[in-house]
């Protein structure tokens, strides 16, 4: 018997067509070059000698086709605005990110069961991002947090949409779905539950000097956003208010 594979929902054809153009542009052929005069040699700078180097520009554009495997239900859940986790029937561990097999050595790779999780959690830890990879630059500044969803034993990386100086470890948050969902963790974000006070021992807030420095460098980030993307500080601050 031949194995049959059927596409039961297709949200990919337009991008496959669109990508053909990038693939053609990014086809590994040399698009330009520079001649560069620079130090050569293994030793200290003072011992180096200049040589002329030919430096080429060669692109590489790729579109991957990747299966989410047996955790597909989680990502389809994001598109359908439901947050799923899994639970091990042997040791009762609740996983979010989900695992379809329990990793507890005692459970001998037991199959877990899908459960729906509440749209609430708490910040286990965080970083305030003032720089990031290309795809995220326009979102700066943002809070990258590991959030433990209520009822789950693990933590999920989520952006918390809040003023960066308001974040703290242990903060209670609500999980929200973004308008345009595409099937990854950026489909959700977190917002702080209202009415919480920052604990005195919050590591971000212990020292006024640290907050001053963070505010100083946030200003640098706004200047960068304005220059690179024409995004104004007021627009950034609106993101944190519009929930």
């Amino acid at each position, binding site marked *: 018997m031949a194995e049959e594979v059927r596409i039961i929902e297709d949200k990919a054809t337009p991008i496959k067509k669109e990508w053909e153009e990038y693939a053609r542009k990014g086809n590994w052929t040399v698009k330009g070059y520079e001649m560069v005069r*620079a130090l050569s040699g293994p030793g200290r700078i003072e011992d180096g000698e200049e040589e002329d180097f030919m430096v080429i520009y060669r692109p590489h554009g790729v579109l991957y086709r990747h299966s989410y495997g047996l955790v597909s239900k989680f990502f389809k859940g994001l598109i359908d605005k439901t947050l799923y986790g899994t639970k091990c029937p042997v040791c009762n561990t609740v996983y979010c990110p989900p695992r379809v097999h329990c990793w507890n050595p005692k459970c001998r790779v037991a199959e877990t069961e899908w459960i729906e999780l509440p749209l609430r959690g708490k910040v286990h830890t*965080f*970083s305030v991002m003032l720089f990031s990879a290309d795809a995220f630059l326009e979102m700066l500044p943002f809070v990258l*947090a590991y959030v433990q969803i209520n009822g789950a034993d693990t*933590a999920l990386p989520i952006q918390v949409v809040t003023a960066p100086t308001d974040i703290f*470890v242990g903060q209670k948050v609500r999980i929200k779905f973004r308008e345009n969902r595409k099937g990854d963790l950026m489909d959700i974000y977190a917002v702080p539950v209202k009415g919480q006070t920052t604990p005195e021992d919050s590591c971000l807030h212990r020292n006024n*000097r640290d907050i001053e420095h963070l505010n100083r*460098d946030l200003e640098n980030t706004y200047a960068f956003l304005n220059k690179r993307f024409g995004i104004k500080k007021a627009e950034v601050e609106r993101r944190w208010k519009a929930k």
Partner: protein
Amino acid sequence: MSDRRVAILGGGLYRPGRVRYDNAEEGVAMAYKNMLNDFPNLDPQDIQFVQSSYFSDHLNQQLCMAWIVQDYIGQHRKGGYRVEAGGSTPLDALLNAYFLIKSGQYDLVLVVGWEWMSEVDTATANEFIASASDTDWDFTVGGFYNGYYAALETRHMQLYGETIEDLGRIAVKNRNNAVHNPYSQWRAEHGTAYVTLDDYYKDRIIAWPYRRWDCALISEGACCLLMGSEKVAMKYSNNPMWIAGVGMGTDSMRPGDRLVDWAYHGVYKAEEKLYPKNIEKPVTPYPEMANFGFAREAVKQAYAQAGIRNPLKEIDLAELFAPYDGVELCLYEDLMFCHRGEGKTLIREGVVERGGELPCQLSGGLTAFTHPVGATSLLQTLFLYWQLAGLIRKKLGDATLQVRNAKKAITTGHGGTGCQGGVIIYSRD
């Protein structure tokens, strides 16, 4: 286990920089030539195996670059392969060469490591590096290792109370060491003036709590090491540096999973107990998202083999794989230089400073010396070799960093957010 002893016999380097224009195989060849100068008795044909070490295929649009390198230096015909495990790559290469010799398979192995990281822009380099995180999960939110590591450090700060000032002390210490290392990128870019905490505060935050100074450099560079069994060691080297103990460990791919880390659960009870009472415990309190379980696991094996009971007293210096200043502080704890939560004390009291009881990162480390990933642990090992052989003045033209009469040293390596790594203890005798 085989009782054959294995030694680092010496090595050579190609000065790392932010951008170098000699290409990777030429850089390796120059490091190899640099090494050969120290081994007048070595016939290159005596080398029996070439262990290659480089991290990323993405960075250079080239798979199997090890084949290019091995033939470029005329070391083809004999066996050779590459190992790859993110930041752990060069340490794993050293371990692999060690096992090949220890097993009796070979007596003389060349380890070559390199990385050329500036063929793409900085943001793309960070993106490629971050693709060593779980790309279905962690990568999609931020796509930047600095962020994940920063989040780990935030957790440790919250639990154990170190401050930005403590991170600053580490950053300043490493720079003020690097100015005495003429191969360091810090010195190449900033000269030889010492820096202070005030200078640190002026530096820009990129992923709180980390400033640029707290984070590993992006580098292009290469290093070669010659390793041999005791049968051949004295033939080639007057100053072999022996491998006294090794260990390896792993932890979860995604740091968020460490809150219920069943493989670690109950294994390190003393560390679990040192969890602050006022903070709600996750199911598994150690390593949690605060410490590095792989390092604790690895160092336990390494200390047992090397017979080390009191690392702070018995080890003379450390070159740690610390891509971020908070990692260095946490490793003080996980390598048992102090108890969990006391890492801050070691930096505050100067224990890890130059002239302290256990100086760490005298080379400048990954944040001030260099971090061409596939060569990093090789460069740190070469630096330790110079230390134990008393060659710092000769090799660096400045004896400031020389630890007098150094006998034992430790190095670590790891990849991911502490997903995999190892420890090597080196001994002069």
